[in-house]
């Protein structure tokens, strides 16, 4: 019984991590740059939900599209400030500009909302769901459902639409995409928008059970980073799998030992993994630098 509840919690957490990691990979593929502010975008999404809920007394499910729209617009602005001015520079420059953006977001949130944790409304009301003998938190189930819908929607967008084809073409070979008439800059901005939208959704979903604080994104970016590494740098499916594995590991080890021990073990496993399989668990054809 307990095991099943833990499993549902782990999958819910993993689903939220997966949204963050998916956004991370989208930007990575489109630009080759590591977006270190992705975790802070989650935090921003959480606060967006908190603010909207304060002024609009509607159920969480109605707020969700509003949060998604807001964070999408924010993603475009973010790309204009932190990516496009630096596109011709080495990747480390974008890495640092996104770190700077993260600092701005964290301290901006601290100014606006203070350091105490805030909670966003639940998606379909809080409480628990009884299914026979099983007692499951509603919000965990809602997280899994929303993440699955968003994940599938993204998959459909990338695989089945003209827009998605242009986006993938940009990610594969920017110059070639430009040559065949893809508006590369728009596609890159769209990738950022999608990435922050996914992060914003994760922020909304997590901010109910786990609350949101100005620094709650820092932990998430590390987990997304690890998920993407485990899953093979650049693979969308791998990122989802990596996120699930991390969440299972985290919930499982925390249940037996402690959260701190779980994190230490996670990093230890990661280092061992990088040592034994430098190409990631699922395997990008990454070559070690000769």
């Amino acid at each position, binding site marked *: 019984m307990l095991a099943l509840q833990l499993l549902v919690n782990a999958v819910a957490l993993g689903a939220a991590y997966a949204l963050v990691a998916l956004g991370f990979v989208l930007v990575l593929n489109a630009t080759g740059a590591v977006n270190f502010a992705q975790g802070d975008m989650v935090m921003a999404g959480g606060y967006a939900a908190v603010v909207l809920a304060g002024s609009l007394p509607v159920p969480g499910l109605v707020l969700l599209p509003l949060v998604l729209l807001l964070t999408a617009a924010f993603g475009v602005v973010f790309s204009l400030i932190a990516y496009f001015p*630096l596109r011709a520079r080495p990747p480390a420059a974008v890495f640092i500009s996104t770190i*700077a953006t993260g*600092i701005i977001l964290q301290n901006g949130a601290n100014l606006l909302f203070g350091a105490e944790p805030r909670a966003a409304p639940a998606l379909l009301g809080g409480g628990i769901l009884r299914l026979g003998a099983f007692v499951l938190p509603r919000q965990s189930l809602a997280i899994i459902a929303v993440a699955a819908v968003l994940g599938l929607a993204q998959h459909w967008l990338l695989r089945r639409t003209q827009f998605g084809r242009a986006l993938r073409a940009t990610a594969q070979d920017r110059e070639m995409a430009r040559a065949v008439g893809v508006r590369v800059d728009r596609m890159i901005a769209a990738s950022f928008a999608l990435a922050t939208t996914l992060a914003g959704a994760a922020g909304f979903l997590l901010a109910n059970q786990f609350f949101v604080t100005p620094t709650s994104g820092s932990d998430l970016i590390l987990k997304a980073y690890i998920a993407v590494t485990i899953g093979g740098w650049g693979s969308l499916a791998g990122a989802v799998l990596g996120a699930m594995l991390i969440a299972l590991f985290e919930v499982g080890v925390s249940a037996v030992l402690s959260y701190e021990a779980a994190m230490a073990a996670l990093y*230890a496993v990661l280092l061992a993994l990088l040592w034994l399989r430098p190409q990631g668990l699922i395997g990008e054809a990454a070559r070690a630098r000769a």
Partner: protein
Amino acid sequence: MKRGSDAGRGALAPLLAAGALGLALYALLFASPYAIRLLTLAGIDALLVIGYQLIFGHAGALSLAQGAFFGLGAYVTGILGSAAGLGFLVTFPLSLLLPAALAALVAVPTLRLQSHYFALATLGIGQVLLLGARNWDAVTGGANGLAGVPGVIVLGIAVPAGLPLLALIWAMVALGGALARHVVRGPLELAFLLLRESPLGAAAIGLDGGRLRLLAFVASASYAGAAGALGAHALRVVSPDVLGFPVMVTCLAMTVIGGRLRVAGAVLGALLLVSIPEWTRFLEGAYLLAYGLALLAIIILMPEGVIGVLERAGAVSRSERPLPPVRSRPPPQPAKAACSECRLDIRGLAKRYGGVEALAGVDLALKSGEILGLIGPNGSGKTTLVNLVTGVDAADAGAILLDGAAIAGLPAHGIARRGIARSFQAGALSPSMSVLDTVALARQAAERRLTLGRALVAGHGRRAFEAARGEAMHLLESMKIGDIADRRCGELAAGLRRRVEIARALALRPRFLLLDEPAAGLVTEERRRVADDLAALASEGLGLLVVEHDMPFLMPLAHRIVCLDRGRVIASGTPAEIARDPRVVAAYLGTAAPAAG
């Protein structure tokens, strides 16, 4: 810009010296205790950043472990100083050594990783240390950390807090900065530049990139350890905060803002970032926000940091003066007689990429003084063969023998050092390096003058590099490209770039030279010059393998020609025989080829 930035650097020296003097006078005469404390912290950060420049700036590897090494140094001093009661002369060296040892240990699995994996792996180190420090209460004091860290006490004499400690720390900064500058300058600085901009090119002149990165990583860790130790002495406490990610972010920001490569940039970055929060203090709660905005503005507006802007201003204010001319000098006679009977034998060489059989058992032999042409349609395996012989890629099967000794499996730099040089089809030059430096660096590497021992003893100053530059000039003049010695490789047209690559390969004094399409993209006149150069080299005893499509170029030049098709040798013989061979004609014209053996 090479010339400009050198001039800028020179013009900047008096300005920087005046700034340092002004700051010293301020600290002595006017500074409040609070200002002295800030300057102390800035000194500690400067030392941290000088170290970080080695791995991040020079070696070009995004390490996120510098904060962890800083914290480790602080904990070593904290634990040994407060609990074990050891003095500075014991704790300080150990605070340098332990981070260095940890760096060496983790470098083995991590340094071969690609940049983003390396960044994550190094980040992981910090997180593991942080969790250890928080939870190993008995030794680290857990979340509360360690209080009562003693001040700096040397041979019973305590260095009081305030001005004396400030002076000690800045003396350490000066020492550390001078040491870093002493070692990483001239040819070693160029070696790192080539390693950053063209790792293949670095390996091709025999530079061991892994070793260079390892040295930079270990050195950066000891600087961080020193900074951490001094930080523990200055603050008198050590808490898990010293291991937190913010330390790393601050270090990275200081490096980017000050400048990645110059010691003066590290000092400027540290002073600026310690001061910015003070200047924005009037914003109260928003001062960290302003800090983030300033960081973002500087990364966007100043690609080479504050020091880069100053240098450029210095270079403009001073009319651009050319560097003193290099006196061309012939290279010394090689110790061993020019190889007249060397052999390069390739047997059964095979390589697959996924499902594609790039080479399927190729035999070749090349002798000193011989020019062997290698032809074949696109995708027939010519470049793969060159890559396997030069160690850029590993063969699946087969043997490569240099005078009977197996060299397959050696790294690219090892093969270059054994006397097999090459050029690259796409080019492997550092775009921002001058032509003269490019060739001189290869001379320096060939004579094994790029060792750390030499760097520590003699430095890599202009004098140590003078001989190599003179010899490089001689080589360029003999190839009739002495006039472009000052140009940057990135500015050159394709034809000139290719000849610079050949000059660089020759600077290694190779026994064999493998050229990948040396005539591609050249006009007739240039082609003739390259052909003349190659014929002259062969007559001096160099063995040449020339991959080429251009038959009019190759026919009069080559002694023998081998034709590859789909990874197999389909014909070999004199140029005249090859030109008549029906299988070669078929392979090139695409008519049905007779079954290849």
